[in-house]
């Protein structure tokens, strides 16, 4: 049975000592995040997000299914998150660890329950046919702060995804291939992002953003805000750990808002770049057989 790697005493004392002196092991400032990279794949809905060494891959797919009997006018929307043994040998497949359960629960609350995706728009024939949109999330490397990275990946993947165009003619439902008709993006309502804060020190008064795995193992408590760029909070979770002062908590919420705006800007910019690189100048330019001479 492989054992989870734990930080040694020296690492514990050193990290704490350095934090009390206002230093972090990788020389970042307390509220400074690692460089975020967000790249899209060739297919629609494939996103690779990395925060420093933390790396998460998300993929969205859609298929036509039968809606749930109690919700005939809604489509199906699921988020499947998976931590594989690739992350660490201590993770066993099909036996979810606490991290994994918390990750999927928080993503559920942030993205699904906040109504980010308009599920009614996924309905094709009431009570008979609907789209089932599924996001598969794979954590490729865990170096702390997977929740923020995972949330960014899921939102980016859903925003990037395009489902096939359909028409309903009488009782005949036609699903067109991308060559026949341009695929359509999902009907999107708002983009919430998770921002996690970690607290250190005896009174929990040192706040770090985007901790590495080592720092994450040594924190006394943490809290996660999920909010969109308008400051509408979807959920706040602070699961155990030591108590945190109320003014500090409010301050964290303010920082979370500015961070959420940053993520929104990043995502919009990358989506625009991606759209530009895919645009070949209209259907005529795409279909022409003429070569440059």
């Amino acid at each position, binding site marked *: 049975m*492989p*054992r989870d*790697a*734990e*930080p*040694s*005493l*020296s*690492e*514990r*004392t*050193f*990290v704490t*000592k*350095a934090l009390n*002196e206002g*230093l972090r*092991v*990788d*020389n970042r400032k307390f509220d400074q995040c690692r460089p975020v990279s967000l790249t899209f794949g060739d297919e629609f809905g494939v996103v690779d997000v990395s925060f420093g060494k933390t790396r998460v891959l998300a993929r969205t797919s859609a298929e036509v299914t039968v809606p749930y009997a109690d919700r005939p006018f809604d489509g199906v929307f699921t988020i499947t998150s998976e931590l594989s043994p690739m992350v*660490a*040998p*201590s993770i066993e497949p099909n036996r979810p660890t606490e991290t994994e359960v918390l990750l999927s629960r928080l993503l559920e609350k942030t993205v699904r329950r906040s109504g980010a995706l308009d599920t009614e728009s996924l309905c094709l024939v009431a009570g008979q046919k609907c789209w089932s949109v599924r996001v598969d999330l794979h954590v490729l490397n865990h170096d702390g702060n997977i929740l923020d990275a995972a949330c960014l990946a899921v939102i980016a993947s859903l925003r990037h995804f395009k489902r096939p165009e359909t028409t309903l003619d009488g009782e005949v439902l036609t699903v067109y291939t991308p060559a026949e008709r341009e695929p359509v993006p999902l009907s999107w309502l708002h983009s919430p992002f998770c921002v996690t804060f970690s607290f250190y020190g005896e009174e929990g008064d040192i706040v770090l953003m985007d901790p590495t795995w080592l720092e994450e193992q040594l924190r006394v408590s943490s809290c996660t805000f999920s909010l969109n760029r308008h400051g509408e909070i979807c959920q706040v979770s602070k699961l155990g750990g030591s108590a945190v002062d109320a003014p500090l908590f409010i301050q964290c919420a303010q920082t979370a808002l500015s961070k959420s705006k940053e993520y929104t800007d990043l995502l919009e910019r990358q989506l625009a770049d991606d759209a530009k690189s895919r645009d070949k100048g209209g259907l005529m330019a795409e279909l022409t057989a003429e070569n440059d001479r």
Partner: protein
Amino acid sequence: MASQPMFVLPGDRIDPSLIPSHPKKALRLGPGLQHAPPNDIIPTLAGRLVTDHQKNAIRIETATGRYVPRVGELVIGTVQRSAAESFFVTLSDYTAPALLPHLSFESATKKTRPQLAPGSLVYARVTMANKHMDAELECVHPSTGKSEGLGPLTGGMVYDISLGFARRLMMSKGGIVVLDEMESVGLQFETATGRNGKFWVNSENTKTVIAVGRAITESDTQSLGAEEQRKLVRKRLKEMS
């Protein structure tokens, strides 16, 4: 000695002129090479082919991989727990622990055993490494009874580095000048390198520890040459002040 580095991929054909031939000694194959009878030598790893004509040996050096203990190597381990007669020490993550007997410390007797809390670091030498048994360590030279620099490491910070970099750090001609450069500008610190890919550094000043640790890990991950390492050290020093 090989004049220029030669890189091979698994399954590559090795030029016969590169294989050392010694009139008396038998050819010794190091890690990463396999003998395919009757007279072929096939690489099984990707890396640098190193030949030693005096020892009539040939091996492949790679920077990556998992640590496998070998007798006589110096390692930095974390004490997991103390048993009746020995400590259980982790050398690398997710592997079976190595054993460090209580009596293998300098001037340790049955009455005065060293007290090491779980999580403390030790600098030790591998005394037994068997494929099917847990490795054994010691913190004392068996014939002189002196510690010779081995023993518990208190304070400081430990960084993970790649195995190839750890090996180069321990060689005098490994081409790593980071530590010499940092020392030459007057920084005071002490270090220990374990072959298991651990680098320990301690200093009075927290900033020094962070600067040294970052310079080492960055030279490792970006595989910097000597001149780039000097540049990196200058950059780190500027940040410190």
